[in-house]
C-alpha cells in the first residue's frame, strides 16, 4: 500500500508545475484567451516536445506509455494553470476514444499526429434535448451505399473550432433514446456539410455547436462496434471524469490556500479576518472537503487503473462529490474574499468558474447521485438483528 509518486511521476509533476509557473500567469492567460485562436500554438508544440501529448498512449502506438495515474497527475497540475490549450479535447477525450475503440487504421492515422501536435481532435457526444443522457442521440447516420450519411447537431463540443477530426455519436438504428443503435464515427472536420457555430465558454475556453448536414463517411470511419457505441461513450466519459476531477481537485487546493492567505493579511474591525472563528471553521471545512475529494479521486483512479468492476460506481461517486464540494469550496472562497472575490483580478474567481463548468460536464452532481444510487449494492437481508444497534 503506497500513495507515493514514482520517480518518473515526480519528474512529470515537477515539469508541469514549472511550465505553469513560468508561463501561466493570470494576465498572460487573459491576453491569450482574447487572441483569435484562444490559446498558444507555441505552448502546444512545447507540450508535444515534452511528451505530454503522448502521455496516455502506449509506446507501441508512439506514445509515452503512461497510465491513468500519470494522467491524473498531469491534469491536476495543468488545472492549476487553467490552461487554454485543447489538451482535454484532443488527448483526454479523443485519446480515450481512440485507445478504447479505434481501429488499427484509425490509430495509425491519428495517434501519431495527436502525439506530435500536428493533429487535434475532439468528441461530439451531447445534444440539446439529451441533457446528460448519453443514450439520447437524435443525430442520425443513415446507410448509403458502402458508407453512411450523418445529419444532426451536437452541442457544446470542446475545441471543435481547431479540431482536425471530430468523433461523433450518431444513431444508426433504434429510437432516439435507445441504448442500442448508437455508433461513433471519425469525421474529418473539413468534410462537406460540417458547419460550426463557435463561441467562448465562461471559463475562457472554446466550444462550438456542430451541425452535420448530410455528411458522407465511409464504413471504415466507424469507431468501435456498429450500433454498440454506448459502451465506448461510457468509457470515454469515465476517463474524462477522472481527468476533470483531477483538475478540479488541484483547483480546490489552491482555492482554500489562497483564501487562507488573503484572510491572514486582510484586516477589518481591527483584526485579521483569519482571527474570526466563523471564518476559521469555514476554512477547516473547505480543507476537509478538498481532502475528501482527493481521497475519492485516488480511490476511483486506482480502481479504474486496476480494471476493477467497481470503478464506474466510484466514478459516479467522485463526480457527485467533486460537484458538491466544488460549490462549497468555490463559494466559500469568493464569500471570504468579500468584494475582491467577485472581481476578475484574483485567480480564485477563475477557479470558482472552472469548478462550476466542470460540474456541468458529463452530468452534474444530481445526475451522478442518481446514477450512484442506481448502482449501489444492496446486500441481501439476512434477517439478523444487530447485536450492537448503536454501532
Amino acid at each position, binding site marked *: 500500500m503506497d500513495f507515493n509518486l514514482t520517480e518518473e511521476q515526480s519528474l512529470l509533476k515537477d515539469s508541469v508545475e514549472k511550465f505553469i509557473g513560468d508561463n501561466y500567469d493570470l494576465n498572460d492567460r487573459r491576453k491569450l484567451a482574447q487572441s483569435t485562436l484562444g490559446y498558444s500554438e507555441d505552448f502546444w508544440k512545447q507540450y508535444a516536445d515534452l511528451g505530454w501529448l503522448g502521455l496516455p498512449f502506449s509506446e507501441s502506438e508512439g506514445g509515452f506509455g503512461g497510465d491513468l*495515474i500519470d494522467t491524473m497527475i498531469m491534469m491536476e497540475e495543468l488545472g492549476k494553470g487553467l490552461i487554454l490549450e485543447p489538451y482535454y479535447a484532443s488527448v483526454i477525450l479523443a485519446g480515450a476514444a481512440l485507445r478504447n475503440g479505434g481501429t488499427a487504421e484509425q490509430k495509425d492515422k491519428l495517434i501519431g499526429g495527436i502525439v506530435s501536435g500536428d493533429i487535434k481532435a475532439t468528441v461530439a457526444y451531447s445534444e440539446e434535448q439529451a441533457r446528460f443522457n448519453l443514450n439520447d442521440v437524435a443525430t442520425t447516420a443513415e446507410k448509403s451505399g458502402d458508407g453512411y450519411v450523418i445529419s444532426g447537431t451536437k452541442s457544446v463540443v470542446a475545441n471543435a473550432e481547431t479540431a482536425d477530426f471530430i468523433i461523433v455519436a450518431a444513431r444508426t438504428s433504434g429510437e432516439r433514446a435507445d441504448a442500442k443503435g448508437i455508433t461513433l464515427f471519425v469525421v474529418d472536420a473539413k468534410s462537406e456539410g460540417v458547419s460550426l457555430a463557435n463561441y467562448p465558454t465562461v471559463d475562457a475556453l472554446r466550444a462550438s455547436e456542430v451541425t452535420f448536414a448530410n455528411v458522407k463517411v465511409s464504413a471504415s470511419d466507424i469507431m468501435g462496434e456498429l450500433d454498440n457505441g454506448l459502451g465506448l461513450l461510457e468509457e470515454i466519459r469515465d476517463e474524462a471524469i477522472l481527468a476533470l476531477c483531477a483538475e478540479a481537485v488541484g483547483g480546490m487546493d489552491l482555492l482554500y490556500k489562497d483564501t487562507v492567505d488573503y484572510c491572514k493579511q486582510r484586516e477589518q474591525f481591527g483584526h485579521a479576518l483569519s482571527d474570526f472563528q466563523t471564518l476559521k471553521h469555514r476554512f477547516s471545512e473547505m480543507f476537509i472537503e478538498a481532502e475528501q475529494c482527493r481521497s475519492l479521486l485516488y480511490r476511483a483512479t486506482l480502481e479504474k487503473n486496476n480494471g476493477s468492476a467497481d470503478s464506474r460506481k466510484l466514478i459516479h461517486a467522485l463526480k457527485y462529490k467533486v460537484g458538491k464540494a466544488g460549490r462549497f469550496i468555490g463559494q466559500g472562497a469568493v464569500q471570504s474574499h468579500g468584494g475582491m472575490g467577485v472581481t476578475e483580478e484574483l485567480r480564485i474567481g477563475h477557479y470558482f468558474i472552472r469548478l462550476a463548468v466542470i460540474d456541468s460536464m458529463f452530468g452534474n452532481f444530481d445526475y451522478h447521485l442518481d446514477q450512484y444510487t442506481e448502482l449501489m449494492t444492496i446486500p441481501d437481508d439476512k434477517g439478523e438483528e444487530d447485536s450492537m*444497534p448503536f454501532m
Partner: protein
Amino acid sequence: MDISLNKEELAFEKEVEDFLAEHLPRGHEMWTKRAEWFAALKEKGWDVINWPKEFGGPDWSPTQHYIWDKVSCKEVLPPVMPFGQVMLAPVLMKYGNKEQHERFLPDIRDNKSMWCQGYSEPGAGSDLASLKCKADLTEDGKHYIINGTKIWTTMGHVANWIFCLTRTSSDGPKQEGITFLLFDMKSPGVEVKPIFTLGGSHHVNQVFFTDVKVPVENRIGEEGKGWTYAKGLLQHERKGIAGISRCVYALDKLKEKAQRVPVGDSTLIQDQGFKKKIAVAEIELLALEFTELRSLADMVNSGSPGSQSSILKLKGTEMQQTIQELTLEAGGIYATPWGNKKFGPKFSKGGMEGYLNGRPATIYGGCSEVQKDVIAKRVLGL
C-alpha cells in the same frame, strides 16, 4: 501509487479471516462465550493489538492494523471497554514506572480491572485544562488528599479504578499544575451519582471526592506534568472514536433493515428519497475510508500521520450520527414505543436509542468545533 496488498499481507488477511471463522462467538454467544473468545485471542497473541511488543502486543504494521479493521468490521466482536486497554495503558507504558506497569497492566490486559476516566468537570468541558479538582500533598509527603468532582464519568458506577486529572498547583498557566493520579473507586470519600441521559439510559455519572486519600505511588510521572500525559491519551481516544470501519458495517446493516420496513406493498429500500440519503452517506464514507488509508500510508512512510488524520475524528463521528439518524428514520412510527415491550420492526427501538446515545460522539474527545480549531491551527497555520 498502489493500493493492492502484497503476498504476505494477503496471507495475513486470510489468517485473520480464518481466526474469526474459528473462534468468534456469534449471536447471543457473544455474551455467553466472551471468556473463551478473549482466551483464544490471548493464545494467538492478538488480545492487545495496539500494545507495543515489549508489553505483549503483536507488533503489527499499520497495514496489518488496517487489515484487521477491514476484516473484523464485518463482524460484531464482543466489546471491550476502551478505558483501560486503549486509553490508559499507553500512558502507563510511556510515563508510568516499572512497579506501576507490573501492578496495573496485567489486570488491564485480562479485563480484570474496570477503569473509568476522571477528566471533565462541571466547569471544564471542552476547555479541559481549566479543571479544579484539588489534590493536596500531605505534610509527610505520602498521600494526596482529593477534593472536588468529575462529571460524564462513563461506567463510573461499575468501575473499580479511576484515572484522574487533578490540580496540584494554580500558579502559572492552567496547563501546568495538573497531576495524573490513579485510585480505587472504593476509597472512602468517593461518591457516585448517576446521570440519566436522553431516553433514560444510565452510562454516565457525576463523581464526588471528599478528602479521598491517594498514595503518592499512584501518581503517574511527575507532579504538575499531567497535561502532557493527558494530551497523549486524547490522541488514542480520538483514533478509536472515529470508528470508520464500524460505519461501513452499520451502513450495510441499515440497507438490510430498510428491506424489512413495509411501505404499503413495497419496502423502504425501494423509496428513492431514502435510498438517495443512504447513497450520499455511502459516498462520504468511501472518501473517508481512503482518507484513513492515506493517513495510514503516511504513518508507514514517515512515522507520523499526515494532515488528513485531523479529519478522521470529526468526519467519523459525523458519519456515525448520519447512520444513526437514518436508522431512526427507517423505524418510522415505530421509533417511538419505549420500554421493554417490542412493537414494529425489531430494530426500531434500537434506532431511537442509537440516535439519542450517539449524540455525545461529536462532543467528547474534543468536540467538533474544537477539531475545526485544531485543523485551522495545525494544518492551515492560523
